[in-house]
């Protein structure tokens, strides 16, 4: 009876403590980003610097440095993240046992496939903005290599994120003069957008048709033209270059913990199951346009990060539920044995186990909710473009990125962040 009373008294502070340990630094990063204080966000990210969260720390820092305009610093952080994630590929027996018997949050953070793809996407954008198309090409090849490892037959990512990675790879291959590689990437991108039930971006449709034309594949061109409902398109002029605008829109989704707790009225034993769920933070962008001289191009959403996170978590929930049940069974047995020794010890063991039962809510949270893209083909020369971003609520924002020099066959990339 005394054990039951003790456990009920301790329940409230225990519930208060549970769940706040892991997400606090990331909440702080998010708060600072909302206040447009990237320096403060970088400072907050330092609290993630632990052996367990090392890859996550590098990913968050890489993204924050990218927001801050330190592209080379971002490249270095992302390269370190890649190395760490490669080292974490083998299975850790101790962590696997811990996941099933002790706690979900005790193991080392490992990025999901869509996060790894977005790591390459961000690295490609970093290199393109630094004007290093060859290094961006390396990233495009790593996207293909990584996807072939995940799915040797189709090279598809299980929860999405690969359509835009392929699309951007195609742009990079075209920019480095590898037209056949670009065609393969564009083709795979279009197929993946279709498979994921997402609209194929208009620019990708035209790029694919242009390349099929240029490489002398009229049958396939006609099939795609019919699929897209396009009857005419302009071939790319040889003396033109490209201006690419990427909008990193909104704050990425977060995982929040949902808990079900109950108590056995006979023994006072506490049971708890905590599972994560996705909370979307919204995409503030509704439309996008680039204007340079008398030319203009509209953009569209090319990547929905939240959709990939939704699919990834949906696929994981059965495993996470099974592990949570397994941990409750283990704790029940251990508490019962401890209670046989001493009633107080049984209560203590039960409460410690209860406290440890937390959902793993770690996620690369500095990613945007969505990526938007607009591409404008321009004759070689100097331009003062304007980017117009329409936001939810009817507000329009005009951004002047300064002068850009377009070279024949060249690619100039600029990024705007909208929160």
């Amino acid at each position, binding site marked *: 009876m005394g054990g039951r009373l003790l456990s009920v008294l301790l329940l409230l502070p225990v519930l208060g403590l549970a769940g706040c340990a892991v997400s606090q630094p990331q909440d702080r990063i998010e708060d600072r980003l909302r206040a447009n204080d990237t320096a403060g966000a970088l400072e907050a990210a330092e609290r993630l610097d632990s052996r367990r969260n090392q890859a996550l720390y590098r990913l968050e820092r890489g993204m924050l440095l990218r927001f801050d305009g330190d592209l080379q610093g971002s490249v270095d952080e992302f390269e370190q993240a890649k*190395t760490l994630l490669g*080292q974490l590929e*083998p*299975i*850790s027996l*101790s962590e696997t046992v811990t996941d099933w018997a002790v706690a979900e949050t005790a193991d080392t953070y490992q990025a999901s496939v869509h996060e790894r793809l977005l790591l390459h996407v961000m690295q490609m954008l970093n290199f393109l903005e630094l004007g290093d198309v*060859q*290094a961006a090409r*390396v990233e495009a090849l790593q996207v293909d*290599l990584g996807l072939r490892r995940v799915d040797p037959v189709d090279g598809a990512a299980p929860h999405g994120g690969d359509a835009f990675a392929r699309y951007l790879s195609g742009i990079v291959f075209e920019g480095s003069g590898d037209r056949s590689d670009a065609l393969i990437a564009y083709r795979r991108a279009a197929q993946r957008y279709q498979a994921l039930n997402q609209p194929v971006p208009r620019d990708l449709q035209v790029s694919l048709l242009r390349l099929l034309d240029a490489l002398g594949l009229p049958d396939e061109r006609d099939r795609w033209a019919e699929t897209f409902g396009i009857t005419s398109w302009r071939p790319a002029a040889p003396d033109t270059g490209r201006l690419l605008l990427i909008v990193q829109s909104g704050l990425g989704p977060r995982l929040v913990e949902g808990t079900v707790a109950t108590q056995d009225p006979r023994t006072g034993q506490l049971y708890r199951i905590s599972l994560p769920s996705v909370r979307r933070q919204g995409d503030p962008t509704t439309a996008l346009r680039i204007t340079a001289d008398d030319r203009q191009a509209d953009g569209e959403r090319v990547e929905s990060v939240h959709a990939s996170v939704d699919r990834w978590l949906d696929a994981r929930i059965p495993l996470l539920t099974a592990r949570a049940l397994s941990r409750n069974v283990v704790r029940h047995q251990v508490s019962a044995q401890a209670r046989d020794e001493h009633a107080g010890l049984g209560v203590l063991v039960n409460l410690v186990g209860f406290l440890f039962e937390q959902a793993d809510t770690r996620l690369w949270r500095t990613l945007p909710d969505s990526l938007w893209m607009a591409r404008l083909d321009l004759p070689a020369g100097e331009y003062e473009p304007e980017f117009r971003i329409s936001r939810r609520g009817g507000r329009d924002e005009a951004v002047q990125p300064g002068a850009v020099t377009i070279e024949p066959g060249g690619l100039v990339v600029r990024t705007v962040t909208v929160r």
Partner: protein
Amino acid sequence: MMRQLRMLGVAWAMLVLLAGCATQVDRVGEGETEDLTGRWNDRDSKLVSEEMVGDMLDRPWLERHINNSADEPTVIVGEIRNLSDEHISTNAFIRDIERELINSGRITFVADRGEREAIRQEREDQGLHAREDTRNPAGMELGADYMLTGTINTIRDVEGRTEVAYYQVNLALTSLSDNTRVWVGQKEIRKVIRRGLFRS
């Protein structure tokens, strides 16, 4: 007594565990290979540059050039493109090639475009500020006879946890007078990477 022994055992186990956490640094010789990841590394760069430059200097173009012009050829290293799926420092590879070429003593080597600009600026500066008898005049540069260009490619084959990485380095020496290729070399490195199933 038993209690003291148990405490001693626990303390010893903790010491053993903590000893494994200490940072350890081992200094390795320049020639020793530390292939940690299976990726292109400094040793690959040195091996390939040594072998390819050796092959280049053993070919008949060199003797033909000396017979025709009665002077050793002047070479410049142009672009070496990284077409692989790794971020390879082509600058480091170019430096290794340059070192091998210069140390062979059989060719004259001239600075690349970027370095030449810096040297010209220094010469201009000398023209203004250096003592007259120590100035180096403009217009005395040595033009290269040949340009060395190339590519680094990779092909990967992955099956389960085993990966075969095949690096292919292609170099070509082209005459700047008439664009003829006087030498083409190829060096391949094959690495088998077996990734463990488990980690600690």
